[in-house]
């Protein structure tokens, strides 16, 4: 592997400045210590990342302003493929389902490393998806989920080119469709089942938060509970409560399910929809929820308990209540002592970041389901600020260079071997 680190001005960074060298007894030579070499390399990657910042931000805006609700990501994927073509990547393709892919060809090309993110967004039916650029940050609808990560896919080849850095392995850059909500990682699962390539390791990109290091996936049960009025419902009866009141009972009962702290378990009731007007009895109410646990057994117990609740409330109130499970994922992943986790932790620490090791429910689970070692990392810091609209997020510009440097550092570590 060639490693000629360059700064934004194009001047080569010394492989190891004097401060990072140590004296080899008897030889008269100064040799750098391994941790210091890593630190110096990462600093070089950071300053090179600064030089491609504008292109990253421009692509971030372009991706972020293209509507891409789950099941309608074509435009974003087309933009991604066009960008890959402009850059000159090999094997640019849009697969049968609609995932977009490009490959940075390795010098040996025997191994494949996968870098991926989701192309779909939670923004639905919004006319103005404009992203605003402020002095130190960008603000826009779900700009942190996941436009930065998509822009990182199109910027990474340019960054490696600036660094004159070539890996032995092929780097597969993948933007998946149908990831969120009812998509349930369909795009990624399709790719993993059909790509025909042996993948040595996977790196999932999330826009925020920089410093996260997800090595393990928490189990997940995601579903909708539908409460519908029966055909023979007595509409004329004064005081008819429709489907909302029984759903209120269901919510109440679910919130009373005892959840253990260990293994960590939680239930999020994220969305309730029902009714059309003040004075109309609601025909149908839908509760969308997600249960998360480190234990598959507990998730199965929760599923059974929710089934019992809806059966009981349905029988008592005379309405039809059903559970529609739209996603179920098993917990699993790497051990915290896995070499990949250790190496990534060291890289983040050398970049001056505080590694945040925790479990996630992201795309990582699909990777780990097929026994590919993988991690999820964030690219910058951001927040959903209270004064912004509910869907507007704010992401910071300055940390992006560390985010990209971390990405190069981890890929390099995997490419060098011994961590996956």
């Amino acid at each position, binding site marked *: 592997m060639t490693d000629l680190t360059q700064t934004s001005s194009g001047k080569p960074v010394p492989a190891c400045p004097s401060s990072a060298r140590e004296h080899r007894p008897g030889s008269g030579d100064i040799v750098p210590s391994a941790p210091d070499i890593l630190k110096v390399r990462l600093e070089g990657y950071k300053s090179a990342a600064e030089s*491609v910042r*504008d*292109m990253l*931000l*421009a692509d971030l*805006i372009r991706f972020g*302003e293209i509507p891409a609700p789950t099941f309608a990501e074509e435009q974003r994927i087309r933009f991604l493929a066009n960008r890959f073509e*402009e850059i000159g990547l090999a094997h640019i393709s849009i697969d049968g389902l609609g995932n977009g892919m490009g490959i940075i060809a390795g010098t040996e090309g025997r191994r494949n490393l996968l870098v991926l993110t989701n192309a779909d967004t939670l923004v639905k039916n919004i006319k103005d998806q*404009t*992203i*605003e*650029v*402020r*002095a130190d940050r960008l603000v826009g609808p779900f700009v942190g989920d996941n436009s930065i990560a998509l822009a990182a896919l199109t910027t990474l080849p340019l960054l490696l080119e600036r660094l004159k850095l070539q890996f032995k392995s092929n780097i597969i850059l993948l933007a998946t469709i149908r990831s969120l909500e009812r998509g349930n990682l369909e795009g990624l699962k399709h790719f993993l089942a059909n790509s025909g390539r042996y993948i040595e390791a996977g790196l999932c990109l999330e826009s925020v938060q920089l410093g996260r290091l997800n090595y393990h996936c928490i189990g997940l049960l995601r579903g909708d509970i539908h409460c519908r009025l029966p055909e023979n419902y007595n509409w004329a009866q004064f005081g008819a409560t429709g489907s909302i009141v029984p759903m209120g009972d269901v919510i109440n009962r679910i919130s009373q399910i005892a959840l253990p702290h260990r293994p960590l378990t939680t239930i999020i009731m994220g969305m309730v929809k029902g009714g059309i007007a003040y004075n109309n009895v609601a025909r149908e109410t839908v509760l969308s929820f997600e249960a998360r646990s480190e234990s598959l057994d507990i998730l199965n117990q929760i599923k059974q308990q929710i089934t019992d609740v809806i059966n009981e409330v349905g029988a008592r109130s005379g309405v039809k209540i059903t559970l529609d499970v739209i996603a179920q994922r098993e917990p699993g992943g790497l051990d915290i002592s896995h070499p990949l986790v250790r190496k990534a932790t060291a890289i983040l620490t050398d970049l001056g970041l505080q590694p945040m090791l925790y479990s996630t429910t992201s795309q990582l689970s699909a990777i780990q389901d097929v026994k590919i070692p993988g991690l999820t990392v964030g690219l910058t810091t951001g927040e959903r600020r209270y004064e912004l609209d509910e869907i507007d997020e704010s992401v910071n510009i300055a940390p992006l260079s560390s985010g990209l440097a971390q990405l190069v550092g981890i890929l390099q570590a995997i490419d060098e071997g011994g961590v996956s």
Partner: protein
Amino acid sequence: MKLNLRKWLQSLTGRAPVKIPQKKFQVADWLFTHTFHHSQFADIKSLVVEKKRQNLRISLCLPALNEEKTIGKEIIMLKSELMTRYPLLDELVVIDSGSTDQTREIAASFGASVYLARDILPQYGEKHGKGENLWKALYQMRGDIIIYIDADITNIRPHFAYGLVGPLIRMPEVQYVKAFYDRPLTVSKGVRVSGGGRVTEIQVRPLFSLFFPELTAIIQPLSGEYAARRKALERLPFPVGYGVETAHLLDIYHRWGMAAFAQTDLDQRIHRNQSTHALGKMAFGIYQTFFRRWKAYGCVEKLPAMETVLRQFQNNDGRYEQIESLIREVERPPIITIPEYQQAFGRRP
């Protein structure tokens, strides 16, 4: 009785109002040959090759006044694509009228060269208005082609610049390229609805229709985005305020005719909506510019002295009050008459 405008003007001035071209101008022909869509220039690499072959320098100017919400995005989008990724632009300059917000700081932080208009050619004083920035940009920038893009666009895309510069690179006879957006033209499939802004439709298009019908082919005569050759711009006077776009069209038309123009469809432009009061001021400035030329071209012997006060009304608690605004369209001379400019560019009038 039907008024014969031509005869009427001749009776007033003793000469024809405008030069009659030998070959009758056909709007449809001109639209076909001189109207483009930005996608026709999307091959930026080939534009760069042709630019280099012609040894052209291209400068982009963003005139600004309190545009902190949009300036950063414009610079990122244009610089990253048209300077870093493809070297189409040689410089990106912000000429600021004295913003009191963070416009200059943000512009500089994203890599633009930023100048205060009052610091450029200070010996010629300080005037207020967008036209002042555009005029001073000619001295500050080095390009053979100058692109002007307003700094208040929220949906900026690289095609705003390459769509305007494309016809100048491809067509040597074209001097000035105007933008239009989300509007007219019968395209290959279907018809889109026509229409400019309110001032365009209520004021400029009727004026052009009456006196310079060929110029009605310019779909959006007041659009703030255009590109032109230095050798044309340096010979034009610049109204410092609202009349600059109208003046450019009239003066270029007067000197070089319609063959010097092209126009490019940039799809859609999202920007701030202006109040009717603000548009009234704009229209007032345009009238001054228009009639000054109307007179200079010899279209009338004598016009009455023009008022410089615009009178509008506002409703104050049920009572209508008259508001007076002083609007004086001062003009800069052609920059080629400025000794410093002549020295800097080695040019003579």
